[in-house]
């Protein structure tokens, strides 16, 4: 009895030892040894969440037997970044490459999670991208933190059939947009030309960007936060006015209610980005062929501008042992004509590469088969995206947007919208100061 118990205990301890050994060998092997010989095989891991990206990477793997890339599918932008920051804190476990949204880059740079690519081939891709996009991967300095992949130039989507029935012209300025919103709502008290969504900070950022806002800036060796300034206040006041008059809805986007409204014609328009066809066909499939795209309404028709909603880049992490190879892959993925074409066809993104976008995006998406010049409109909008700088605590500012503008949308007054902008500024600056950043 006793000896068999002892044997059991010994076996258990051995098993426990094996388990711990298993754990320790399991972690920290995602990076590979330093590679100097060009003919030696390199293994790269790539965390990304764009759909079907692995199929694009297969093309690379076939052509480059010496640099093999493995895509590790992620849940989305936020969880992937949280995981990367954890790995960087732990000192191991990060991939070689990561898909990073533009607004995450300063946070990642601040955490020393990204490698500087300014000494690699990637610097030669500069000419391929619009200047505003390039600025968001350099943070306006000499370093290069990522290669741009896709962007979300904003445009105005509207129900052409309902516009025709109401005899409405497509609004080209924000004043016309307000008038059209009134007409739509007067004709059907349940219908709206759009909604002000407190859930989508990226959407509001794009609107502010169009008006000329740039919320963070590097001023010598200090950050400055410029949320509560004229362009953003103008945009918030404008939307607050529309919500106060009741001619624009105040409910969040991406709710079952909003989906239903897109389907049954109660949401007549949507200020969205180049990727909207995917969302519309998924959420309002029955309305195919009834929508059209137009440039965003303008503040100043003489100087057409637009903002970005979404978009991401390919970055190399600071833990990668093969920065040169990873950089080579990132450049290929986002500027090689074949790769960009594949990104458009199988991953369904709107490429940041200007020439690539032009050659790859020729046929309108199926949902917009009624508008053959779909990509001409969107492509032109992409050219007018204005520059916008993100700071190291975009997450805090976006979270403040959610809470502050939820209150404002609930209050339905213009002054509450202006208070919300001030609240965002306050929370963002306080957070920077608390962490010790120098703030001007």
């Amino acid at each position, binding site marked *: 009895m*006793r000896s068999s*118990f*002892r044997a059991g*205990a*010994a076996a*258990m*301890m051995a098993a*426990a030892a094996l388990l711990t050994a298993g754990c320790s060998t399991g972690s920290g092997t995602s990076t590979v040894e330093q590679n100097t010989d060009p003919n030696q095989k390199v293994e790269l891991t790539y965390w990304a969440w764009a759909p079907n990206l692995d199929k694009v990477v297969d093309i690379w793997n076939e052509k480059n037997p010496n640099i093999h890339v493995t895509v590790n599918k992620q849940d989305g932008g*936020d969880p992937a970044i*949280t995981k990367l*920051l954890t790995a960087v804190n732990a000192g191991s476990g990060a991939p070689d490459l990561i898909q990073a949204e533009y607004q995450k880059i*300063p*946070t990642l*740079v*601040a*955490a*020393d999670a990204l490698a500087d690519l300014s000494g690699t081939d990637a610097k030669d891709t500069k000419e391929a991208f619009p200047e505003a996009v390039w600025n968001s991967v350099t*943070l306006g300095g000499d370093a290069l933190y990522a290669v741009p992949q896709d962007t979300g130039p904003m445009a105005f989507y509207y129900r052409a059939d309902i516009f025709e029935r109401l005899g409405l012209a497509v609004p080209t300025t924000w004043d016309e947009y307000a008038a059209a919103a009134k007409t739509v709502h007067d004709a059907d008290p349940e219908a709206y030309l759009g909604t002000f969504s*407190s*859930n989508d900070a990226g959407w509001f950022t794009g609107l502010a960007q169009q008006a000329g806002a740039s919320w963070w800036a*590097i001023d010598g*060796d*200090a*950050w400055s936060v410029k949320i509560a300034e004229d362009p953003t206040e103008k945009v918030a006041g404008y939307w607050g006015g529309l919500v106060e008059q009741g001619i624009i809805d*105040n*409910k*969040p986007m*991406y*709710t*079952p*209610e*909003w989906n*239903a*409204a897109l389907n049954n014609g*109660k949401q007549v328009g949507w200020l969205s980005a180049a990727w909207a066809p995917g969302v519309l066909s998924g959420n309002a499939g029955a309305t195919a062929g009834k929508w059209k795209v137009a440039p965003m309404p303008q503040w100043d028709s003489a100087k057409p501008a637009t903002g970005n909603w979404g978009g991401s880049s390919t970055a190399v992490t600071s833990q990668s042992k093969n920065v040169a190879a990873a950089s080579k892959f990132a450049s290929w993925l986002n500027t090689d004509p074949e790769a960009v074409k594949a990104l458009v066809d199988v991953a369904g993104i709107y490429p940041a590469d200007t020439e690539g976008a032009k050659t790859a995006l020729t046929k309108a998406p199926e949902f917009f088969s009624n508008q053959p010049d779909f990509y001409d409109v969107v492509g032109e909008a992409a050219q007018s995206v204005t520059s916008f700088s993100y700071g*190291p*605590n975009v*997450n*805090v500012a976006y*979270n403040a947007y*959610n*809470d502050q503008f*939820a*209150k404002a*949308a*609930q209050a339905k007054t213009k002054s509450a919208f202006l208070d919300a902008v001030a609240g965002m500024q306050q929370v963002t600056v306080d*957070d920077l100061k608390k*962490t*010790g*950043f*120098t703030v001007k």
Partner: protein
Amino acid sequence: MAATATAPTQADKTAIAGPGSPRKARSFKQRALTPYAMLAPGIVLFLVFMAAPIAYTLVLSFQQKKVSGLGLGKGAQSTVFAGFDNYIRSVTDPEFTASVLRVLTYGAILIPLMLGFALLFALLLDSRRTRAGNFSRTAIFLPYAVPAVISSLLWGFLYLPGVSPFHFVADRLGIALPSLLNPDLITFAIANIALWGGVGFNMIVMYTSLKAVPQEIYEAAKLDGASEIQTALRIKIPIIAPSVVMTALFSMIATLQVFAEPTTLRPLANSLSTSWSPLMLVYRDAFTRNDIYSAAATSIIIALATFAISFLFLRIVQKRAFGQEN
């Protein structure tokens, strides 16, 4: 391990030398170790999955991230000892105080209703005249098996005026229903989801303890001419008081930890902030704002408060509820 391997040779030697005290000593030592070996799995699991995370949370709660200048590039960020800074900031944060108040209101609505319904259903099921008892019991218990996230999504659909069948019917009848997602009603909307999911569980706990009551007591009551209602009020409720107290305690703890329902409803309406409940605040600090240190401090405060409230509650009701057991 080495000692185990050499033990038999030692035993052989003592065997040759003749039976004596060394052999006794060994078996005594072995006997002394046995309970520890038996406890080892439990202790190891406790240390690894309970004590270590708690200790780590404590360590984190006394640290903070510090950057200098622009905070970009290598070595610009470091982790420093923060003393009680995180705790002071948590306690003095108006958002934290507001979230605690909201949750107390929520509990004041939810707990009496939930326990009241649970007790009512348990007594009804236990009364002699009940028909279809098994079916009703299952039907009341079933919502408990639905995960909180799923039930919140379901109720979210029912609450949204644009897709809700209730609003559809009311509209047809010409009645204007207020949206439960309005700021004035949102606490009720969340409490309703928890009520729907929680009544069944508490009912089962009370019902089980009713079943344990000896039948003779009821017979005696009947002989004395007590009606069903009198039996329920004067006999059943006092006897199952301990389980009512226990369910109340569980409900209070669950209330303080409410998270899934408001988090799932939040994107549907403007009336819920990302810091609506204390745990949502912790989640926001840790995962949205990447400030794991503040989140750790707030977690410790919530844990201590939960402990204190539970302890206090038991002290107050213990005498009354468990008095008859002694």
